[in-house]
């Protein structure tokens, strides 16, 4: 497993390299530039100032050189400074990435906690009222946009019931209790929709597995039904669920801008969105690179989990 993990980590390198090239290229293709943002209207016609700023930020060099310089420094852990705030990129990322990862992990965790039991029960009690209820609930979950669910959740739980805060963020390292208090609604908004997908997937995987011969064999050997279902069947059925949850988490890391806005959650989605608007390319590059590393790591973790769930899976 260790060799497999090392191999996978080595495979990450070309993936991340291509990612940085693609992102760098696309940033260059964006209309407008950061100097325009920095100099505003007042010095719009001052070519000397533009030149001076381009020199200061290294934007006067050919694009491939800019990329090379950035990459060289990034490999040494120096992502430079934001062109807008002039704070180190590491500070910018350290403020925003943990908030998004925290939300993503808890949201996905919540979805698994809801979806796996619900999907399993629905499969075991196929065509029963429980199954129909689970299916209808998950269909509703898929059909409701996340932002609408989030707004409704704020309306009910914050505004009318007054149970939970409507927006804001507290780091778990500052105050865990408060942090969880502020996390519940955003995590629910993330988790509900993901749970709907995962419930349907778990149910169908369970049904597939339950029709396989090893399940009949286990039953014929006299194993109890709960043991057959939860020890053998569910374990195998979870492989696609884990795969999809891993992909969902990866997707969430860069794609929660709307939820971040609704819950005033200071995550990386907003940071990168604004950086794109401002052409703050060191922040865009570093943000996407770090997110890419996290996504690749999540995928690696998912692959390693296969092995845990099903030792027959070969990791070579």
């Amino acid at each position, binding site marked *: 497993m260790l060799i497999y993990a090392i191999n996978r980590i080595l495979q990450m390198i070309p993936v991340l390299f291509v990612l940085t090239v693609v992102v760098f290229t696309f940033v260059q293709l964006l*209309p*407008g*530039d*950061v100097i*325009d*943002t920095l*100099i*505003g*209207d*007042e*010095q*719009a*016609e*001052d070519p*000397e*100032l533009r030149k*001076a*700023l381009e020199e*200061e930020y290294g934007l006067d060099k050919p694009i491939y050189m800019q990329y090379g310089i950035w990459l060289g420094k990034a490999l040494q852990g120096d992502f430079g*400074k934001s062109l*807008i*705030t*002039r*704070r180190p990129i590491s*500070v*910018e990322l350290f*403020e*925003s990435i943990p908030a998004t990862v925290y939300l993503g992990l808890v949201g996905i965790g919540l979805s698994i906690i809801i979806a796996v039991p619900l999907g399993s029960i629905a499969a075991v009690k196929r065509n029963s009222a429980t199954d129909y209820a689970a299916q209808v609930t998950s269909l509703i979950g898929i059909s409701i946009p996340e932002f609408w669910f989030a707004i409704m959740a*704020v309306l009910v739980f*914050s*505004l009318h019931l*007054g149970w939970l*805060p*409507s*927006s*804001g*963020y507290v780091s778990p390292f500052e105050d865990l209790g408060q942090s969880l208090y502020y996390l519940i609604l955003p995590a629910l908004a993330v988790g509900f929709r993901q749970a709907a997908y995962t419930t349907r997937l778990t149910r169908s995987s369970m049904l597939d597995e339950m029709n396989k011969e090893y399940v009949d064999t286990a039953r014929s050997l006299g194993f109890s039904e709960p043991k057959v279902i939860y020890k053998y069947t569910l374990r195998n059925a979870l492989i696609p669920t884990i795969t999809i949850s891993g992909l969902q988490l990866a997707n969430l890391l860069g794609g929660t801008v709307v939820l*971040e*806005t*609704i*819950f*005033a959650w*200071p*995550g990386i989605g*907003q*940071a990168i969105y604004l950086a794109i*608007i*401002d*052409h703050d390319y060191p922040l865009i590059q570093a943000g996407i690179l770090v997110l890419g590393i996290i996504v690749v790591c999540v995928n690696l973790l998912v692959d390693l989990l296969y092995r845990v769930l099903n030792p027959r899976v070969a990791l070579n």
Partner: protein
Amino acid sequence: MSKDETTHNPESKTGPTRRQFLGTAGAVAGAAAVGVSPNKAEAAKRDPKRGGTVRFATRADSRGLDQHRNYYYYVSHPLAATSMGLMDLNLKMEPVPGIAVGSEVSKDNKTYTFSLRKGATYHDGADVDAASVKWNFERILDPKIGHPFVRAAIKDFDKMEVVDKWTIRCHLKNPSAVLIPNVTYYPMQLMSPASVANADNHPIGCGPFKFKSWKKFDSTVMERFENWYETDAQGNALPYLDAIVGRPKKEDRVRLTALRTGEVDLIDNMSYADATGFEKKYGDKYNTWDVPQVGTGYIGFNMKNGPMSPKNPHGKLLRQAAAHAINHEAVHQAIFNGLSSSAPAFYSKVSPWHMPEVKRPYEFDPDKARFLIKKAGAVGEAIILTSRDAYAYMHQTGEIVHAMLSEVGLKVQHEIHPYSVLKQKWQKGEFHLDSTANSYRPDPDAWYGRNVYSKSATTKLRTGYVNEKADKLILEAQQTLDKAKRLELYQAVELMVNEEVPMLYTHYIPLLEAGVKSLKGYSPAFAGPYSTQGAGLRASWMS
């Protein structure tokens, strides 16, 4: 409105003439010297309590921390509470003594001598003395450091002279009657020279609140500066509040919900739709405040090229047609929910620079618009209308204008872009109309001198309007001390603008704020909530 192109182009303000300034300074001198806020009778009734924290949800967050590189926009950037300039602003947006308690202007209007407030310190304890002020101005003037908007306010500085520890003399390249308002805390924020190495991470200013922490998109924490010079009528030190916590929440409804759920105490930029019935419905729980003119919305025309420019013999007819085609009442109702007012000139009735004699020259008359377009032979003419994505009222107004111009026979394409893209389009002249706005300018030179004067960078970049008579009047006004005379000159300019239509004012943009009842003594101004002498969060408290 939070910041507008105001964000990138908020321009300097000018204020009273020398006479006015000296008059104001004289009248307030005794009080200002010890920093006493006006409105004694009112203050005596208020019974303020010292302490408490205001959690303030704002639409915008600060962009960066270095005061010279970024400037803190007074309306929407929480960090505005941490800064001060040589001059302060009062509730009428008039410059009043700040760090400087007096000034002398030479007869030729080329030399300004400021007497500084003895005992005023930066938040690190260093004196705000002449040497540090000189250092600040020199740093701002460095094109690689000073934000263009900030630098433009003092671009005419020739040299600065430290006369003694508490006196600084500024020599200008050209005579100016508008320097005083240009050295108010916005944008001319003073920072401690000793803090420069860490200015991007921990700014140290000399305002009523000191910086504690900033987490982007999350919070700005500021604490009371105990050595702030201002006092109330009873001689109690201001500010009363222990701290302000800025909570940026971009969406209007998110801020409103946070107020209603008790997570914040004060919000800015209520959406116009929410504000309409809010006071009636929740007036028992919350106070609401209107800032009557935080900016002015307008349609800028491309006068450099294209069918609406003077290069087209019928360009003026087309601009007039557009002016007749736009129904201001429809914009007023649809965008601002009836809370704004139509703008015939840049300054509204609440401003000391209001021009009652300037009337809207082109009333809504779609038939006349159609006639003019036909006369110009421009039926079906392709027109590009641009607007900025960051401010809803700009592109919403753009959408309505799009429909109205299409209605009268123009083939309009509406494009919504971020600032950097718009800027390229302005530079290349790839637009014909632009739905935009400009934040309130305390002195008219900051509007006419930058957006109408043909040689200014902003005018060249955007409309490209050239009117030699207007230029002459604007330059004359820049050097005229008498306010009445200046008003006359600017009114003449405004009449020219309305006649030629290089831009068409649409609406005065209101700013609506709401807060909990326990926030006492709060009165916002044009200058927003943070930093107005004797007002805003500087003189409010939590009961």
